[in-house]
């Protein structure tokens, strides 16, 4: 990955939650077209990193640049407009609204009615099960369908960079496989992906590169294949 094409760049990013020092100088790069994975245990700072990128929490120091522009002080709703969409942990769909309304809200920042319609069709083609349930209240969907809806909703913002926070959480192995192959498809269609996962095995399978986080620090980085063979990673995250 050439450094020049870096789409997203984190330089010495620190985040504090009150007295707790959650991110201790994170350096991270995501190149255009890549799938980059962040792996690590609970509380390592994976979700915090994503939230800092999408502006939901403020960084205490450091620089986050996206397509050459410093976005560390940009408010969350402006960051979405720049093309960064996040699929939050635990899906967080709008439970009392229909599948259709959820997707429409995904296109909230957009005004191009034609493009929205086109993307809606694209999402429904990608997730035929959502098409079947288009008028259903989203809270009544199964876990896997809700995850699909959350991804579909993020796609409706027409992102250049998609941040996925634990998309495999609470899903059956077969569904996890399905979700991951969809993530790969989305990537192949031209969306850059930064993926946070506890399921390190799956994450390393689809990622190009990966970072390992421990208590707020990046302890390892490299290509996904390298990391999958690395002794420490095997021991800690892949079960020997």
């Amino acid at each position, binding site marked *: 990955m050439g450094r020049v094409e870096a789409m997203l760049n984190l330089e010495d990013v620190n985040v504090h939650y009150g007295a707790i020092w959650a991110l201790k100088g994170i350096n991270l790069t995501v190149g255009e077209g890549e799938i980059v994975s962040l792996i690590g245990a609970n509380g390592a700072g994976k979700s915090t990193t994503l939230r800092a990128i999408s502006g939901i929490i403020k960084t205490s120091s450091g620089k986050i640049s996206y397509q050459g522009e410093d976005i560390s002080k940009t408010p*969350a*709703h402006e960051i979405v407009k720049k093309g960064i969409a996040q699929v939050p942990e635990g899906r*967080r769909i*709008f*439970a009392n*609204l229909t599948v259709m309304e959820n997707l429409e*809200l995904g296109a*909230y920042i957009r005004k191009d009615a034609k493009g929205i319609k086109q993307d809606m069709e694209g999402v429904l083609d990608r997730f035929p099960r959502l098409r079947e349930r288009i008028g259903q209240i989203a809270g009544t969907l199964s876990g896997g369908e809700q995850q699909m809806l959350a991804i579909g909703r*993020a796609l409706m913002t027409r992102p250049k960079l998609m941040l996925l926070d634990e998309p495999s959480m609470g899903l059956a192995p077969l569904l996890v496989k399905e979700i991951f192959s969809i993530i790969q498809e989305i990537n192949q269609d031209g969306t850059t992906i930064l993926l946070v996962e506890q399921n390190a095995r799956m994450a390393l399978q689809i990622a190009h590169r990966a970072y390992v986080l421990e208590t707020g620090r990046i302890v390892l980085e490299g290509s996904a294949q390298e990391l999958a063979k690395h002794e420490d990673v095997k021991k800690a995250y892949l079960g020997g």
Partner: protein
Amino acid sequence: MKKYLSTLIICLALAMLFVAVQVGISSGLISGYWVTNLYLVGINIILAASLNLINGFTGEFSLGHAGFMAIGAYSSAVITANLGLPFPLAVIVGMLAAALTGVLVGLPTLRLRGDYLAIATLGFGEIVRVVLMNIDYVGGASGLRNIPFVVNWPLIFFSVVFSLLLIRNFICSSHGRACLSVRENDLAAQMMGVNITYYKVLAFVIGAALAGLAGVLYAHYYTILQPRDFSFMLTFDVLVMVMVGGLGSLTGSVVGAVIITVASAFLQAIPELRMVIYAALLILSAVFRPQGLLGEKEVTINILQKLGGVFNGTVGSKQTN
């Protein structure tokens, strides 16, 4: 085509209601007591619908409605009673004053959630009341008198229609969608690019302005204002109307306001039992219908058609849609 038809039906129904009541009042068929209660129903509909915009649609639990109403009432009364300026100006000033206060209160407090926001807005309402009690210019505790009597049925009617239309159009717009997304999940709303602070404050300000309008009508009907009229009990009454009708249902607010106002009018005759029955009704509705009479649904012409079909025995015999 069908949409125009239902709009036409609604307009016709409203016109008939307007004329029927106007004839009833002018001919004396509706007694003075019920005219008062009718106006009160109107004022309460505005209060309930505007509180529902904040609490039901945007999901922010505000208890400051009496405060905004008081600001609307007092500021408009100062315009007409103290300064002798015309009533239309008083309406504008009353609504603007309430809206402005909404911005000032909303910006800092809407960062709070749930219980904390409730307590902060409750505190605001009480502050307004105590401050008014200590300003001699508006009569202090003994109240502001000699406010011109301006309110009549057309004024009430069109104020209610204006308020409901404003809220309905807001909810059905993309702004309304944004408010709904804030209620459903503010983190996800943020991730979809919704400026959540803006929409929380916007809904709060529109709600406050309409509460101000209700205050203006109140002031110019009763012609006397006392700070104690705007105690926490008033907010509580409005909240009950919203809850009974259904949080997140505009037509529910109308139904709730009508039921509660008419019920308390009937219960006037037995004042010692009034609060007991009132409380019992609340408990019953909380146990058996916690989502309110209408839940989040709206009464529409389509539903009425279906209901009509039930009575005529046509639903079930043929599939609609």
